[in-house]
């Protein structure tokens, strides 16, 4: 009897082991690049993010090591329901393992929940809301590039300490705008500033003059633009027209991408200060990456920090899969491995991933150059200050992520 039980146990153990090796030998990966492919965020994410994912696959050398990797891309049109539907189909029908990019915080929060339900992996680069690694964190999501905390504590604190002690917000009326206004408010107040008011505008607004007039009438020293992409460029351009900056008020473009600066032109954008975590002209590695990227981009644009984030988050994902010896198709397990390994890549340098899913690295306070200071096309930024890693992201003891309360 005893030998029989022992044999049975041994048999079960063996079959488990066999199952494990079967998993371990599975070397297929399917990547879904979900983004705004045609709207106001398409230049900062969109087709560039799909390209960044392709470059990550090529540069990782995974294919030469016997891996089979497919990339598909989808358009969420800045609508959470569409984004979730695409993602659901990707998991159920196309057997996607990992979703990357997803700008637009509203869509990202919805997709993050779905990815947890499907036990996939979500490497978010494009969305801003710090809720992704706070109240709404999941064991399947890693938020890579930046968040509203970074922007608030980079730009918000710097301006408040530099004399901009009264603020008025122009806020995009959805999850991202609300999170950015909330985080900036606390950063400004912590630096001794006060908030005089704000106005919420619908996402994707063409004319900001009404809102700008309200901001002008508030007499606030700083007008905080808690919006992104085309909304930000339109606000900045029209603020110049209404004489807001020449009237002595300062604009805080809380989230500004290199594609926005390019679109505005230096004549309009000069002097704006803002926070980013990646600039193409920072060092030799970033320049080499940017050059390769630009050559392959249809509109010959430079990579934004979102594109850089897609690239380096995928490289780290591949590293974790290699460490696991194969693709277990178990999102939580892969993400746990990713958190365990230190990150080191050419674009963001050395860093790590916190238990709440927040990838941390330094951030940079930049200022847009004057037209006379720009030496070549896309030479737009001047580094003002480096924000050390520990100040750039929510400190772990302040994070409200339920994963931390174990």
């Amino acid at each position, binding site marked *: 009897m005893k030998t029989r039980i022992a044999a049975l146990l041994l048999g079960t153990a063996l079959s488990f082991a066999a199952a494990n090796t079967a998993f371990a030998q599975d070397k297929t990966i399917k990547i879904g690049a979900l983004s705004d492919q045609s709207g106001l965020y398409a230049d900062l994410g969109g087709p560039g993010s799909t390209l960044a994912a392709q470059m990550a696959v090529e540069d990782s050398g995974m294919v030469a090591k016997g891996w089979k990797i497919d990339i598909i891309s989808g358009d969420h049109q800045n609508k959470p329901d569409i984004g979730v539907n695409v993602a659901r189909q990707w998991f159920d029908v196309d057997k996607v393992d990992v979703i990357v990019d997803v700008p637009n915080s509203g869509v990202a929060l919805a997709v993050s929940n779905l990815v947890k339900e499907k036990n996939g992996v979500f490497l978010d680069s494009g969305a801003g809301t710090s809720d992704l690694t706070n109240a709404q964190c999941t064991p399947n999501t890693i938020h890579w590039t930046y968040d509203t905390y970074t922007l608030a504590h980079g730009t918000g604190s710097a301006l408040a300490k530099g004399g901009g002690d009264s603020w008025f917000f122009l806020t995009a009326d959805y999850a991202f705008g609300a999170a950015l206004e909330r985080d900036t408010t606390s950063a400004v107040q912590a630096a001794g500033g006060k908030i005089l008011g704000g106005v919420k505008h*619908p996402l994707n607004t063409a004319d900001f003059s009404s809102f700008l007039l309200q901001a002008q009438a508030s007499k606030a020293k700083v007008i905080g633009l808690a919006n992104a992409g085309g909304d930000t460029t339109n606000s900045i351009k029209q603020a110049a027209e209404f004489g807001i900056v020449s009237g002595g008020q300062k604009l805080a473009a809380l989230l500004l991408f290199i594609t926005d600066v390019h679109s505005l032109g230096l004549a309009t954008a000069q002097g704006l200060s803002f926070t980013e975590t990646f600039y193409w002209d920072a060092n030799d590695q970033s320049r080499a990456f940017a050059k390769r990227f630009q050559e392959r981009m249809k509109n010959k644009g430079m990579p934004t920090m979102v594109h850089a984030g897609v690239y380096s988050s995928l490289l780290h994902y591949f590293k974790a899969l290699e460490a696991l010896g194969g693709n277990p198709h178990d999102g939580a397990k892969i993400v746990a491995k990713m958190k365990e390994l230190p990150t080191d890549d050419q674009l963001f340098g050395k860093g790590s991933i916190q238990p709440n899913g927040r990838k941390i690295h330094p951030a940079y306070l930049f200022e847009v150059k004057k037209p006379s200071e720009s030496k070549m096309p896309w030479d737009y930024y001047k580094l003002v200050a480096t924000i050390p890693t520990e100040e750039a992201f929510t400190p772990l003891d302040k994070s409200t992520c339920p994963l931390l309360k174990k």
Partner: protein
Amino acid sequence: MQALYAQLLVGLINGSFYALLSLGLAVIFGMLNIINFAHGALYMMGAFCAYFLLNIAGIGYWPALIVAPIVVGIFGMILERTMLKWLSGLDHLYGLLLTFGLALIIQGVFQNYFGSSGLPYAIPDELKGGMNLGFMFLPIYRGWVVIFSLIVCLLTWYLIERTRLGANLRAATENPTLVRAFGINVPRMITLTYGLGVGLAALAGVLSAPINQVRPLMGADLIIVVFAVVVIGGMGSIMGSIITGFALGVIEGLTKYFYPEASNTVVFVLMVLVLLVKPSGLTGRTT
């Protein structure tokens, strides 16, 4: 109260774009019976045309105001001659689908080459700066837009409603065969009318280039609102679309002040109300 004046004026500025665009749509619908969904794309082409003129040929804003509408208008006439012509006499739906498809193709091509964030176009030097009106700081350029578009709108109205050419045109819409019998080349007149409508859209595009970014989707964002304006004003009514354009700009401006969250939807709420009470629009004729 001061703030309110400022919002009214800002609303009037936006209204002038609505008026110019809806006027073009009304002309095309009234004379050709085509619901021109490509109008937004043609408006965008006007802005891009101004951008190309400046950056490739070195031709500035003032000549662009004339050249861009002509270039885009010719493009429109080619569209009419090669495609839209074959749809005359068919249900409205065919024209709508064809022009909608054209709009998607045109926007897609521009987006492929220029991305979505747009290109800068500076305000011409003569119109830079602004004046303090006491209750607000009015950028001179915006003041120019209101006055110029009002003049263009009234001229177009005069051309169609009060001249012999306009009378021929209206007659040709009613009874093309009879008008032909008088020795008037009706197909050519139709083509030119489409060119005129398209030219108006391109003109609005040039006017808006210095205010908004020159973006491939600038028309797509606007066209739905403009259609609502046309529906409220009454399909095909020239004066109706001018007045409604300005009025809705003002109403939208006020909404941005009192309840900004609804500013994107207020036009459509009004459209629903008007359709419920007077389905042919405020000034429309029931046919």
